[in-house]
């Protein structure tokens, strides 16, 4: 079922008329007996054969529209992989060639990434459970960045400590940074060692189903708001506490971002589609989705932004923690 939020019949017909469809596909999609008019918009029952037969360009355009509505889960949060060649997504995966042949024609392009939204259509055709698991594992592959800091004998240690301490962790960082210029020729240090403990312990890992800290719903907001905290704040599993924290503990900054600043990708309806944490340069710390197969990673900002539909009007909001911000009010429960 495809959901088109707040669409009128006229708008939906115009959308379908503008797509490169076969006559059969067009006849089916513009036949209002295949539509359901609901208060929130229009739902269209998309036949399996029709979906599988969409041209790559039509799939790209249509899925870009569907991606605007959270109700279309597999389009709103598709599998994605940053690569020029889609074959790279499956390289050395061990998948059977028949499986790759089923999936690859259904990939579509957005920015620097290839996306896939049709797992539910493909899985029933794969009889072997191990092969199905391997496909999901492969589709869940994530590109990320290892980031290292070069420290030279003449590096400005005070400046480095000032930046990477975020103004509050100099005591933790200074001993390590001071040791590096003494190494002849300098040293290359993975920046994981310079991040707050929350990020340091989670970077390049996946949530556990029964993690020791009891987390149940860990998404981008939970990640961004806990980034600088010495202990996990579980209230950020609730969106109400997230909203309260953004409004009471952060202010909108308009200068150069610093380590730990939060950026929100705001949708036209005022909701935040995504949150990420600024690290340095064009490197950000992010968890792209609440699902367990989404790890905590470092990404280049352009790669992250490229995974969102270009025709959705996302506004970037730059937040910084208020000094001595009051804690988020406790929820009644």
């Amino acid at each position, binding site marked *: 079922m495809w959901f088109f939020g707040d669409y009128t019949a006229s708008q939906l017909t115009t959308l379908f008329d503008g797509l490169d469809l076969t006559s059969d596909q067009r006849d089916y999609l513009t036949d209002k007996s295949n539509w359901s008019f609901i208060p929130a918009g229009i739902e269209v029952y998309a036949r399996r054969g029709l979906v599988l037969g969409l041209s790559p360009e039509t799939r790209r355009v249509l899925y870009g529209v569907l991606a605007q509505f959270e109700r279309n889960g597999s389009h709103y949060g598709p599998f994605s992989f940053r690569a020029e060649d889609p074959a790279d997504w499956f390289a050395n995966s061990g998948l059977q060639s028949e499986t790759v042949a089923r999936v690859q024609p259904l990939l579509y392009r957005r920015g620097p990434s290839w996306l896939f939204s049709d797992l539910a259509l493909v899985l029933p055709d794969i009889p072997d459970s191990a092969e199905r698991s391997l496909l999901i594992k492969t589709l869940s592959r*994530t590109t990320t960045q290892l*980031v290292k*800091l070069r420290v030279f004998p003449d590096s400005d240690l005070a400046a480095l400590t000032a930046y990477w301490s975020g103004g509050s962790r100099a005591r933790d960082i200074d001993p390590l940074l001071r040791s590096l210029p003494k190494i002849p020729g300098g040293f290359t240090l993975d920046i994981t060692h310079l991040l707050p403990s929350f990020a340091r312990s989670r970077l390049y890992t996946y949530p556990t189903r029964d993690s020791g800290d009891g987390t149940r719903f860990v998404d981008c907001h939970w990640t961004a708001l806990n980034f600088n905290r010495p202990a996990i704040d579980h209230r950020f599993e609730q969106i109400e506490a997230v909203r309260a924290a953004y409004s009471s503990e952060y202010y909108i900054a308009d200068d150069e971002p610093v380590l730990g600043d939060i950026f929100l990708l705001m949708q036209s309806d005022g909701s935040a589609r995504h949150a990420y944490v600024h690290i340095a*340069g064009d*490197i950000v710390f992010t968890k792209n989705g609440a699902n367990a197969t989404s790890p905590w990673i470092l990404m280049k900002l352009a790669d992250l932004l490229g995974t969102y539909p270009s025709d959705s009007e996302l506004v970037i909001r730059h937040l910084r923690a208020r000094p001595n911000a009051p804690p988020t009010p406790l929820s009644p429960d």
Partner: protein
Amino acid sequence: MTTSPVSRLFLLLALVTGLLSGQTADIQIIGPWGQLETTRIVIEPPDDLVQLPAPPRE
């Protein structure tokens, strides 16, 4: 998000450094944070997180 002249200079330095090096895996990003080198890697979830949402078609 604003981009100051200083920031643009850093981005230009990063671009030039990346182009001159001829590398695609490592790019230097220079700024008040020091000099960063990045390497793109691919990770995939552990087996225990892989779900099977649908049975095979009969």
